C-alpha cells in the first residue's frame, strides 16, 4: 500500500489520520502518514525527524489542527537547537472524522436541521422513541435514524461526543427533553441547544431542578431558546439560525453583520 492508498482508505472509513509533507528542506515532497497510534507509512528522509514529527502530529490530530511546523534536519525542535541550522518546513494535515450532530425529536425542524448540518459536514444522527416518526423515509438525509429513548443512546454511545460535536434537542416534550439534557450534560459535547420558547424553557428548568440538575455551570451549557436571533420562522430558517449559533459559539464571535464591524473577517 502506498501512503496515498492508506490515506484514502482511512479518510473513507472516517478513521483519524495525519499526513506530514516536507514543503521546504532537503527532501521536499516526502510524506509520512500517522494514526493516533503511530506511524503508518512513508518517511520524511530521516528517522529521528520522522519520530519527532509523528509525536507532534498525534497532538495536532487530536486537536484537528492543520498547519506548518518547523524542524531541524534531524527533528531538532527547540528554538536554541534551530539557531544556525537549515530549517525543514513540514506541512501537517489532520484528517479527523466529521463532527457529529445528534438531533432528538423526529419533527419537521429535524429534517431541515439535518439537511443544513449535512451541508456543514456533520455526521447526523436523528433519535426519537416513537417508531412511527423516526423513520429513514422521513429523514433520508440523516446518517443514522435511531428509535430509542435518549438515556440508552447516551449510555451506549455518549462517549463519542466531544467539543466539536453538537446535541440539538427539538422535542418540546419534557418526557424526552429532560433525559436528553441529562445525557448530553454528562458528555463534553461542545454545543447543547434545546428548542422551546422562553416560557417552555423556564418550565423545563423547574423539571431539571426536580431531577437534581441545579449546577449553574451545567445550566449555562444549555442554549435555549435555540439559535441566533435571526427572526427565523420556518424550519429551514430555524435550521440556519441553529447552525449559525453553533459556528458562532465555536469561533467566539458576536454574530453581527460584518458590514457593521471593522475587525478581521475570519
Amino acid at each position: 500500500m502506498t501512503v496515498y492508498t492508506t490515506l484514502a482508505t482511512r479518510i473513507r472509513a472516517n478513521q483519524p489520520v495525519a499526513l506530514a509533507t516536507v514543503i521546504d528542506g532537503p527532501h521536499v515532497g516526502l510524506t509520512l502518514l500517522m494514526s493516533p497510534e503511530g506511524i503508518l507509512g512513508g518517511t520524511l528522509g530521516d528517522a529521528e525527524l520522522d519520530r519527532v514529527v509523528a509525536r507532534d502530529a498525534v497532538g495536532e490530530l487530536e486537536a484537528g489542527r492543520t498547519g506548518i511546523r518547523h524542524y531541524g534536519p534531524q527533528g531538532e525542535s527547540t528554538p536554541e537547537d534551530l539557531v544556525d541550522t537549515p530549517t525543514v518546513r513540514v506541512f501537517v494535515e489532520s484528517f479527523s472524522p466529521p463532527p457529529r450532530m445528534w438531533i432528538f425529536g423526529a419533527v419537521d425542524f429535524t429534517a431541515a436541521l439535518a439537511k443544513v448540518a449535512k451541508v456543514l459536514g456533520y455526521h447526523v444522527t436523528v433519535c426519537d422513541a416513537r417508531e412511527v416518526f423516526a423513520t429513514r423515509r422521513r429523514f433520508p438525509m440523516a446518517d443514522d435514524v435511531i428509535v430509542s429513548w435518549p438515556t440508552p443512546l447516551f449510555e451506549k454511545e455518549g462517549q463519542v461526543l466531544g467539543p466539536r460535536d453538537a446535541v440539538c434537542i427539538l422535542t418540546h416534550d419534557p418526557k424526552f427533553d429532560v433525559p436528553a439534557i441529562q445525557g448530553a450534560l454528562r458528555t463534553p459535547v461542545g454545543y447543547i441547544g434545546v428548542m422551546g420558547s422562553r416560557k417552555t424553557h423556564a418550565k423545563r428548568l423547574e423539571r431539571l431542578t426536580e431531577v437534581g440538575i441545579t449546577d449553574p455551570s451545567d445550566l449555562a451549557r444549555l442554549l435555549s431558546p435555540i439559535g441566533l436571533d435571526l427572526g427565523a420562522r420556518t424550519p429551514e430558517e430555524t435550521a440556519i439560525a441553529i447552525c449559525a449559533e453553533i459556528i458562532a459559539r465555536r469561533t467566539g464571535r458576536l454574530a453581527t453583520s460584518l458590514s457593521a464591524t471593522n475587525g478581521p473577517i475570519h
Partner: protein
Amino acid sequence: MRELLGDIDRWKSQGKRVALARVVDTEGSGPRETGAAMAVNEDGDVIGSVSGGCVESAVVGEALAILNGEQSARVVTFGYSDNEAFAVGLTCGGTIHLFIQPLEW
C-alpha cells in the same frame, strides 16, 4: 482532500499522472482554509479548488509544469503582498501559499 479521492483514484487507475496542490498557509482573508486542495492530471483535467476561483488557472499551469519536469515540487504564493505574485492576485487581498507536487507517494 476527501472530495478529491474518487477522481484521483479514477485517474490513477487510468495510468494518468496527477499533481496535488494544497493550501499550506494563508495570510489575511483567504477564501479557502488551510488544507483545501485541488488535483490536476496530465491532461489538464481539474478537480477541487484552492481559492474562490481567483488562482485556479494559474495553479493548473504550475501543476502541469511540475508534471512535465519543468519545475520541481515547491511552495507557490499568490496574493498582493508577494512581489512576484502581482500577476495573479486574490480579489480579497489576502495571500495563500500552496504546495504543489506530483502525487507519487
